[in-house]
């Protein structure tokens, strides 16, 4: 009898938890929340960011945002004009509010940046200048500052040392505290060779001694890049942001034309427009709301990823995440729990389930692998067998699971019980002259076909050696995955499960989890081919990976999320790194990418829709004196022309501050189809944008008219 997965025990042995002690599957808990005051908007931040907002008034900075630059120029012009007529309160009031408009925009950006600063400070602490112990050719050591290391240097780190730079372990194994980067206090194992060799500068060796080959220049290390990213220093405008900026600039030009050509028209009509009212009209019409918040939205989007412990190496990747239409998900750890679990005990003919359960439990007590523990748990939960402790059985000799024997068990006197891989157990029974029940093979085959892994349970006692039954080990699909995949499908995203399992097993799990497609017996080349095929069809592909052999695929994918536990090759190749090493997070990354775009679109729509009301406020105020009929457009019944214009300008400034929390938090994202999402967002931000300023301007006008001497 054979099973299709000869080496399943092999995978059991390497399933050693990465974190020591084992802390279970990483959950939705994001340690970043403890470090940064994440998520909610704190009004105090506005005050704290005020100095930065003033610093940003530098025209060389402002010119990067064409819309706000126009407002800045307008503020200077109106202020200068007010000096020529210092007795005119209106000119001063408009100037003041125009300056406030600019400051509010800068404030939004400063607040967004401020949230990253706290985290950057934490990271800087980790980057204290370390002294490295560089290995010389003869085996001697010299002490050099960490900043003087070059690529290829070998350095030694022992317990208590801070690792001086990014590199790969080339010798030894050690537990490393990476909390400075990941925020996760449980140490991780780093060892030479294999997929756990990468170490990051600034992390601390807790035990043992390792030799590290430095792979990154000082100043370009992971931690340096992280600091740049969270501070926004490395921020470059993303493609959609550039396109949106162009559209906003063109709208600004259009309104600039509309306002600049107005004076001759007004002169002809018999009224003179002052510089102050022209600038006020212009500022109200150009899309200042989105212009002011655009960069804050981008920074906050990156920040939301950082709060979830994901580092995006470029903003482009975050945007691409929103466009992804195919997700490649590794089966293990993403779709299923990391380990297979015992699901049932199947007796062979002539045995009872209870007997199998009893023997399986006893033989698994010495098996510390997750699979072994799951057998004990199943025996207790399904068959009421109390978990016995190894000390309870006097004279018992416990045989632990090893990768060589691929079996575990116990010998109590003459009674020997074993459980393990089919091949090993059959060999064990045959060696002892026992027989293998005829139906055992059929049962094992059925389990394999259903996507499970069979383990045989055998016993040798007075009646000789024989197989008692089969343990059905099953991949357990994580809770809620099916719903998650349904959501993704509604969003138009196809999910493909990647697994090393055979097609039969893969199909069974794919069906159970509800993914759209699967790639079985996947090699790195298969993965690469799949990505290229999807991309050739115009689709954007996202994937996660951690091994060196994932690196080419990670680089090819449009969004490649490398696990922080992975190799440095993988981390280099991907365009994001998940510090929690939780592959399920890919789904959240896609949502954050979409949310970023939605927030920009929603505020643009809002900003443009606002113009309608502003026209109804300002046009009658400017011209009703010469063409009384135009007063019919004053549908808000604003109290006076000056008050109408001022109210529109004030509304225009205040709406920026009012929307800062939304810009930072992002528009609420729900996994809906494009149609429903558009209807919803058009309703809220399009219609809302039409109506809100009518109400807002009216209220401000009422308040202004209460000021004596103005109304």
């Amino acid at each position, binding site marked *: 009898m054979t099973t299709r997965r000869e080496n399943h025990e092999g995978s059991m042995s390497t399933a050693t938890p990465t974190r020591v002690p084992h802390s279970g599957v990483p959950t939705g808990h994001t340690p970043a929340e403890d470090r940064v005051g994440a998520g909610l908007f704190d009004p105090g931040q506005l005050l704290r960011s005020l100095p930065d907002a003033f610093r940003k008034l530098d025209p060389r900075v402002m010119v990067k945002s064409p819309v706000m630059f126009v407002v800045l120029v307008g503020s200077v012009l109106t202020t200068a004009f007010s000096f020529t007529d210092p007795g005119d309160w209106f000119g001063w009031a408009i100037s003041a509010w125009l300056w406030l408009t600019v400051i509010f925009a800068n404030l939004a950006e400063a607040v967004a940046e401020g949230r990253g600063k706290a985290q950057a400070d934490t990271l800087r602490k980790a980057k204290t200048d370390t002294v490295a112990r560089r290995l010389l050719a003869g085996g001697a050591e010299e002490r050099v500052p960490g900043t003087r290391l070059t690529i290829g240097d070998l350095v030694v780190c022992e317990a208590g040392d801070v690792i001086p730079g990014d590199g790969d372990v080339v010798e030894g194994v050690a537990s490393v505290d990476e909390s400075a980067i990941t925020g996760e206090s449980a140490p991780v194992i780093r060892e030479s060779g294999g997929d756990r060799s990468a170490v990051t500068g600034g992390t601390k060796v807790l035990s043992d001694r390792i030799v590290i080959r430095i792979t990154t220049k000082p100043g370009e290390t992971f931690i340096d890049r992280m600091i740049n990213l969270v501070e926004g220093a490395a921020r470059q405008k993303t493609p959609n942001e550039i396109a949106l900026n162009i559209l906003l600039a063109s709208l600004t030009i*259009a309104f600039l034309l509309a306002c600049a050509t*107005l004076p001759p028209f007004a002169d002809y009509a018999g009224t003179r427009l002052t510089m102050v009212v022209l600038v006020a009209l212009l500022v109200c019409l150009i899309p200042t709301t989105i212009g002011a918040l655009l960069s804050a939205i981008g920074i906050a989007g990156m920040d939301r990823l950082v709060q979830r412990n994901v580092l995006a190496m470029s903003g482009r990747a975050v945007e691409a995440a929103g466009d992804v239409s195919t997700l490649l998900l590794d089966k293990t750890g993403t779709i299923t729990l990391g380990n297979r679990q015992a699901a049932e005990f199947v007796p062979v003919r002539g045995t009872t389930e209870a007997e199998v359960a009893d023997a399986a439990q006893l033989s698994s007590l010495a098996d510390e692998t997750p699979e072994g523990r799951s057998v004990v748990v199943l025996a207790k939960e399904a068959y009421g067998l109390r978990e016995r402790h190894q000390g309870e059985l006097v004279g018992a000799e416990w045989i632990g699971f090893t990768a060589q024997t691929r079996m575990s068990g116990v010998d109590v006197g003459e009674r020997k019980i074993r459980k393990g891989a089919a091949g090993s157990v059959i060999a064990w029974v045959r060696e002892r002259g026992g027989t293998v029940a005829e139906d055992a093979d059929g049962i094992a085959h059925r389990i394999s076909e259903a996507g499970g892994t069979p383990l045989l349970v055998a016993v040798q006692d007075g009646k000789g050696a024989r197989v008692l039954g089969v343990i059905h080990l099953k991949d357990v699909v994580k809770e809620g995955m099916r719903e998650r995949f349904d959501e993704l499908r509604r969003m*138009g995203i196809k999910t493909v499960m990647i697994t090393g399992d055979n097609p039969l097993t893969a199909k069974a799990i794919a069906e159970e989890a509800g993914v759209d497609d699967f790639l079985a017996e996947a090699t790195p080349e298969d993965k690469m081919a799949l990505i290229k095929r999807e991309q050739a069809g115009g*689709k954007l592909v996202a994937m996660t990976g951690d091994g060196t052999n994932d690196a080419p695929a990670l680089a090819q994918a449009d969004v490649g999320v490398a696990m922080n536990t992975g190799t440095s090759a993988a981390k280099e190749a991907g365009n994001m790194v998940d510090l929690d090493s939780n592959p399920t997070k890919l789904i959240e990354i896609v949502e954050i990418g979409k949310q970023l775009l939605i927030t920009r679109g929603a505020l643009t729509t809002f900003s*443009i829709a606002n113009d309608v009301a502003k026209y109804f406020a300002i046009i009658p105020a400017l011209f009703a004196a010469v063409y009384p*009929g*135009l007063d019919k457009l004053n549908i808000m019944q604003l109290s006076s022309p000056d008050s109408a214009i001022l109210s529109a300008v004030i509304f225009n400034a205040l709406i920026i501050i009012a929307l800062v929390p939304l810009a930072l938090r992002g528009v609420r994202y729900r996994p809906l189809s494009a149609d429903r999402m558009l209807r919803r967002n058009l309703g809220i931000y*399009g219609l809302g944008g039409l109506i809100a300023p009518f109400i807002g301007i009216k209220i401000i006008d009422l308040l202004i008219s209460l000021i004596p001497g103005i109304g």
Partner: protein
Amino acid sequence: MSPVLAGVLQLLALMGALALAYVPLGTYMARVYSSDKHLRVERWIYKGIGANPDTEMRWTAYLRGVLAFSAAGVLFLYLLQRMQGGLPGSLGFSSIEPAQAFDTAASFVTNTNWQSYAGEQAMGHAVQTAGLAVQNFVSAAVGIAVAVALVRGFARSRTGELGNFWADLVRGTVRVLVPIAAVAAVVLVACGALQNFSGIHEVGQFMGGSQQWNGGAVASQEAIKELGTNGGGYFNANSAHPFENPTPFTNLFEFFLILVIPLALTRAFGVMVGSVKQGYAILATMVTIWVGFVALLMWTEFAHHGPALQAAGGAMEGKETRFGVGASALFGVSTTLTSTGAVDSFHSSFTGLGGGITMLGMMLGEIAPGGVGSGLYGMLIMAIIAVFIAGLMVGRTPEYLGKKIGSREIKLAACYILVTPALVLIFTAASMALPTPPHSMLNSGAHGFSEVLYAFTSASNNNGSAFAGLNANTDWYNTTTGLAMLLGRFVPMVFVLALAGSLAGQRPVPATAGTLRTEKPLFTGLLVGAILIITGLTYFPALALGPLAEGLA
């Protein structure tokens, strides 16, 4: 029958006829521009002009073809007018002065047909038929060709090739415009329109005195004038003249000709991009705006108060009694929402708000349904802008018909929508600011301003209708409107063709449930809103000082 009911019935009859023609004509045009066969007469033409119709052109080559052909057209037409005095069949009219000759040449080559002359007092048979009528055909064919190139940009992928300009130009003329115009001319002749080469007649007037009029190939020019959304009348009174537009039936038939190609092109677009539903969505957007404008204009013209107006059943000043208020409103909207510019009533005499509606129709960029070809490409540019904003709102990089709308596409679309507002506003402002140009106004106050605003709106958008009142035959207006027409026609075409090239080079993005559905009514609604807000609002201050100030008084 009440005038309102008559208007509504004519609207329904028109829509019924257009609906019948939509599918066959649209599908036929898609086939014309996709086929690889050449008719014998087309081969002769290709041989004559030395073009190879089978080479594919990139956008730059296509653009060179458009510009070279149009430049040759302007030059030829200019020289023809300048030499009129020495040409046979000039009816004794002298050569046209340089400024007016330039203005008229620019006007007919750009499919604008702005006329600062009165046809029956300035242009003889030679210029009318060999110059103006020819441009009526080919300028329309150029417009359709550019639209087809843009549609190919959507339909093709991973190539920069947009088809062959000469083939598109010749086919549009030979297979689409000439046959339909020929049938239409026969219909017009049958209904009483003029078609001869007779000289000048002097006839006695009913009220005493005498009047001179001449014959000409009127019906044939009238047919293509409407069909190619040209609008340049043989006579000064344009389609209000009984020789051009003899009966209420021909009046209805003329709107049909104006609207049939621009509307059916949406079908050709749908067929060529492989989804007729996308064509319906664009059609629905055009029809929504058009019907809305018709309803508004009928309302302003019927609901106007005052005893004289009520006695007449509406605001009759400047309107032909043969057609009445309803048909005049239909014509006014159809001519300004397309780039036609033919008129059967005087827009200056519409109510203040009514005049504003005709202006706003042009200001929206003449895209509902717009000029032949130019309406479709203008609407597709607006669709790109709307898709960009809405696409962001569904959380994806915006895409339209499987093509991503990135920064290059947005840059080109944004440049496109800036051109005409810039021309209209800058030329109007200059005219108002300079000392002499305002003297051309007939009226003072808001209405006088409307005359100037209307002139540049009409020229820059290649409409060609005049508000009436403004004396546009001055060096200033001839030169500036000529420039406005040329820039308003060809600068946007540069952006359209560049955009087409950029789209054709892209790899298509497959549609998923996460893709914005641009064939749904929701998108049509969004597009209408985007057009009204984005283009309409730019002109709001100017409109407020003209038609709104007058209409709300």
